[in-house]
Every structure is written in structure tokens, then in C-alpha cells.
């Protein structure tokens, strides 16, 4: 197995672990961290292909994804804080009444 295939396998495993973590964990903050793990898995594959093809545009795209990820977490955490202020729990089951 060459380095590229090895890193793509790692990327897939990180994504799969992140996805399953979002499904099986019971804490909203931990679920948010598993979402970040999924994003890191995808970014790893993007970096590997960028390096493989020598495309500078890929590096810029990774940078933009970093920026959007930082903004995403800056919005997600306050939403979480508001939810907990209302429901007083981090258990996602307590918010099953949310629609949409």
C-alpha cells in the first residue's frame, strides 16, 4: 500500500468514526466534536489529492474550509448554549420536540 492510499484509508476511517460517534454518543458537545472529526477526515483527503496533483487551488480551498469551519463552530456553540439554557441538559433526547 503506497502512502497516498494509506492516507486516504486514514481519512475514510476518521470520517467513519466521526459519523458513528455522532450517532452513538449522548452528549451534544461530544457530538459537535465528532462532527469536527468528520470534517478533519474530509480535509485530510482534500490535502492528499491537492499534494498528489500539485494543485495550489486545493490548498486555497482547504484554507477556505478552515475559515468556514471556524465560523460554523462560532455559531454552533452559542446555539448549544441557548439550548442548554432552555432545556438544562446536554442530552439530545430532551430536544426531541424540536421540529424541522
Amino acid at each position: 500500500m503506497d502512502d497516498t492510499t494509506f492516507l486516504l484509508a486514514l481519512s475514510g476511517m476518521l470520517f467513519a468514526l466521526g459519523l458513528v460517534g455522532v450517532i452513538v454518543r449522548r452528549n451534544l458537545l461530544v457530538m459537535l466534536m465528532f462532527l469536527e472529526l468528520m470534517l478533519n477526515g474530509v480535509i485530510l483527503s482534500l490535502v492528499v489529492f491537492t499534494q498528489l496533483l500539485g494543485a495550489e487551488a486545493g490548498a486555497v480551498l482547504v484554507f477556505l474550509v478552515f475559515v468556514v469551519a471556524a465560523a460554523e463552530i462560532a455559531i454552533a456553540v452559542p446555539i448549544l448554549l441557548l439550548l442548554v439554557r432552555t432545556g438544562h441538559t446536554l442530552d439530545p433526547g430532551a430536544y426531541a420536540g424540536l421540529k424541522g
Partner: protein
Amino acid sequence: MTIETVFLMVFALGALTGAVAMFFLRHPMRVALALIGTMVSLAAIYAQLGMHVIAVFQVLVYVGAVMVFMIYAIMLLDVRDRSFTERFSPLLVAGLAGLLLLLGVLVDGLLRGQPFPAVDVPPDAFSVGTFAIVFMEQFWVYFALTAVLLLVAEIAASAVIDIRRRGQDVAAAQAERGNERG
């Protein structure tokens, strides 16, 4: 096996260990530390691949900003309820079955896949200077557009929160007036 491959494997093992540890750790702070370990290992992999700019951004943006923000949230929300005492949801078995399925598909794809063709990449293709030139000559408009869109999203989120708070204040004032009349 070259020394680069050995380093890649060591850092990949570090990243994978952190990701697996996230499953079994109970306290969100420990989960965050395991995720930071994974992110630092990934930064080391990026540096090993010659993508030093991305490695620096990984540490600066993810470990330095995103995870610090997450740790603030963990410190603010030290909730010891069922989400703390019970780590896993009732979907544990289904999730693990899904994980095995995903890993099976991954292994199958790797076994059937063809090796990737090598492309001649200049040694300084991803240096800070090259990245800066390409970024400022070709992609600065996209970055500015992204920044404006994100700013709009942040203002919209703040506005929604403010409207909701004002609505709650008005409802509380009406309820108080009702109590006084009663």
C-alpha cells in the same frame, strides 16, 4: 520503507488513537483533548507531506481557535445529567453495525482500487510564498466573498437571538402586568 513513511505511520496511528479514544472517554474535556491530539497528528502529517501552510493553519485555526472555543463551552456547561452518566445512546448497536459496514466498504474500495499515478510537483509548490501569491492573485475575491457571507450569517444569528430575547421580555412584562391587575 523510507523514514518519511515511518513518520507518516506514527502520526496516522496518533490520529487514529485519538479518534478511537474519543469514543470511550466520558468527560467532554477529555474527549476534547483526544480530538486535539488527533488534530495535531494531522497537522504533522500535512507538514510531512510538504503542505506547511496547511499544517500551520490546522494548528492555528483548529487547535488554536475552534478547540479553545469548544473548551470554553465545556467549562461553561458542566452538566452532570444523563448525558454525562450514560455515554452511549440506544443507537449504539446500530451505529457499530454502520461503522463495520463503512469500514468494509472502505477496505473493499482500497483492495479493488488502482494505484494513483504520480504527478511531477515542484518542491516549492506549497511553500508560504507560492500560496500567498496564488491566493492574492487568483482567489482573494472568493475569500472576501466568504468573509462577507460569514459576516451576514453572524449578524443574522445575533439578530435572531435579539428578537427572541425581546419577545421574551415583552411576554414577561405582560405577565407581570396581568399579575398586578389580578
